[in-house]
């Protein structure tokens, strides 16, 4: 939409590198964000996404490389002159000012007339659906309301770039989901280019036009949610976003087509994948896998392997099954309620899929975090709590 492009800036990072002491925070960073785009910087903690945001905002200086906004280099410009809106994880609302005064703050710095300030503040409050809250102090607001005031404050001067550093981290699940919808709506209304940092892949998928996945200071892949989910280019990206079932084997090229060798079987792969791999992982999303007790029901264009059902979990909207793969490892299959098969725990079955839905990736162990079938990314609260209790004793 051309009107969106007018209100958002193009942000370009070119070969940016930043080092803190002995450790490199980001390296060889090249990223282009289109005007008005919602770009999420996604990755685990320490991956460099927050450093990147700090470089863009000006609170960190890149050691080398270029940072361009609308074609202009802004490396040496202090944060206050960059005109970017920022939303912080713990809101950073000024406790001694009312919501209206908080929101008016950036306008005040720009010496905008009081009456005009009032107009813009009202407009901003309306955008975040907080009309009437002008004279509340931050301590009189709930978490979600505080976050909205922070958002209003960041957009009130209609910045061309809006930076958000894990703004929804402190909210509970339901509030987060609501706020995600709000953020999407506000983004459409305001039209700024948004750079959004998070470690929550679901959030990234829900909000973004495109996602940049960070790992150990470098970019693994940049693309839309669909691209990253369906066609991940590295094992890290595939494992970071969503669950998956992984078959470990070798790849080779035979008669011009890529073949995946797994436990004595030769499995077809879609032609567009890389062919120069040896050790490889064939990765299939759980919802793309079908289970059946009858191998004859599987059509010829599908691939299949024999599995044993280890566990099934009823989820209401469907069920999740854990299967034992031929090489001994475990895989995950999801079936929705409208299309459930007749397999149950303990049975032998065949697991089939369309080769188009499988991704062949290098087995580089780059993300050997947790070989959990659920690929659950939330921290383990029980363990940390135990450690805390055991400490003093």
């Amino acid at each position, binding site marked *: 939409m051309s009107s969106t492009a007018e209100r958002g800036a193009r942000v370009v990072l070119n070969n940016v590198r930043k080092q803190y002491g002995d450790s490199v925070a980001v390296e060889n960073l090249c990223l282009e964000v289109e005007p008005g785009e919602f770009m999420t910087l996604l990755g685990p903690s320490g991956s460099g996404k927050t450093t990147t945001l700090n470089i863009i905002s000006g609170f960190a200086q890149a050691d080398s490389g270029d940072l361009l906004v609308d074609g202009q280099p802004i490396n040496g410009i202090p944060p206050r002159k960059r005109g970017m809106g920022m939303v912080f994880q713990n809101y950073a609302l000024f406790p001694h000012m009312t919501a209206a005064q908080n929101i008016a703050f950036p306008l005040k710095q*720009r010496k905008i007339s009081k009456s005009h300030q009032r107009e813009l503040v009202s407009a901003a409050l309306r955008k975040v659906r907080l009309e009437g809250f002008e004279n509340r102090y931050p*301590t009189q607001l709930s978490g979600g309301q505080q976050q909205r005031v922070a958002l209003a404050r960041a957009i009130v001067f209609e910045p061309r770039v809006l930076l958000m550093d894990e703004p929804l981290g402190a909210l509970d699940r339901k509030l987060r989901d609501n706020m995600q919808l709000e953020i999407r709506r506000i983004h459409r209304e305001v039209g700024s280019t948004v750079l959004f940092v998070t470690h929550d892949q679901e959030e990234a998928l829900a909000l973004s036009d495109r996602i940049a996945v960070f790992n150990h200071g470098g970019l693994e892949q940049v693309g839309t949610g669909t691209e990253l989910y369906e066609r991940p280019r590295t094992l890290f990206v595939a494992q970071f976003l969503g669950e998956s079932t992984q078959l470990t084997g070798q790849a080779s090229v035979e008669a011009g087509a890529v073949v995946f060798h797994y436990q004595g079987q030769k499995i077809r792969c879609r032609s567009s994948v890389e062919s120069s791999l040896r050790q490889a992982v064939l990765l299939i999303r759980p919802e793309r896998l079908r289970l059946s007790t009858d191998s004859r029901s599987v059509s010829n264009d599908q691939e299949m392997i024999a599995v044993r059902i280890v566990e099934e979990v009823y989820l209401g909207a469907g069920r999740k099954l854990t299967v034992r793969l031929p090489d001994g490892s475990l895989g995950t299959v999801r079936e929705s309620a409208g299309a459930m098969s007749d397999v149950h725990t303990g049975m032998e079955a065949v697991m089939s899929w369309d080769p188009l839905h499988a991704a062949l990736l290098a087995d580089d162990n780059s993300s050997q975090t947790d070989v959990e079938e659920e690929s659950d990314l939330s921290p383990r609260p029980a363990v940390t709590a135990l450690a805390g209790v055991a400490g003093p004793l």
Partner: protein
Amino acid sequence: MNSKHIGLKLYGAFVALILVLPTLIVIPVSFSNKSSFVFPDGWSLRWYETFFTDRGWMAASWNSVQIGLLSALLATVAGTAAAIGLTRWSRRKTSSTLSSILLSPMVVPGIVMAIGIYMLFSQIGLLGTVHGFVIAHAMLGIPFVVVAVTASLSGLDVQLEKAAASMGATPFGVFRQITLPLIVPGVASGALFAFVSSFDEVIVSLFIKSPFLETLPVRMYSSVTDDSNPTIAAAGTLVLLFTTLILAVGSAFSRSRRRKLSPRSSK
């Protein structure tokens, strides 16, 4: 914690009384009708009369108030600047050393400081001057300001200053609009302590005074040995009243401010 520990609670009450009660003896004595420090059996206001009519006592009181205010002001400005500088400075070791130096009046025995200041002042002609008193008392008050402001600063979220900067505020603008308003409790508390410490200061004042310029504590101290009549009890009671008043006003302010900024006060 109600019926158990009854012995401990009685003990607590006993100690609390020990902390406060002995001091209060000055009050009845100040109303004594006798000219000595015996516990009075009759009441009179003559000692207050003496206090308010005596030129020496009045001058001393006025000097103490004046010097107290000026030195508190100086200590607050210098101490607040120092606290901010020390907290935000990146050179850790230097700032820690300097911090120790600034806080040392709390540790160095008063008599040692008094003698040294006396000699310095006599060399540069500051003995018996208001300037001299203000400088000396300000130095003594700075530790209080530094401690209070540092405590306030440490509770300040650094992100607030970052946020303000990202919104276009100049460094001075950040300080004026964000930092300063939020450390006002610390500054005020430090200023209050600085004033009270100056108002109460004896030993250094004893050395740098002149017959024409003495503060209330100096006058009170010498009157214990020289006069030995309850005028000093009247003075003491008034000092008690004065400092209690300051304390009450100060804590009332801080309580109202805390109510404004406390979480979920109205919802």
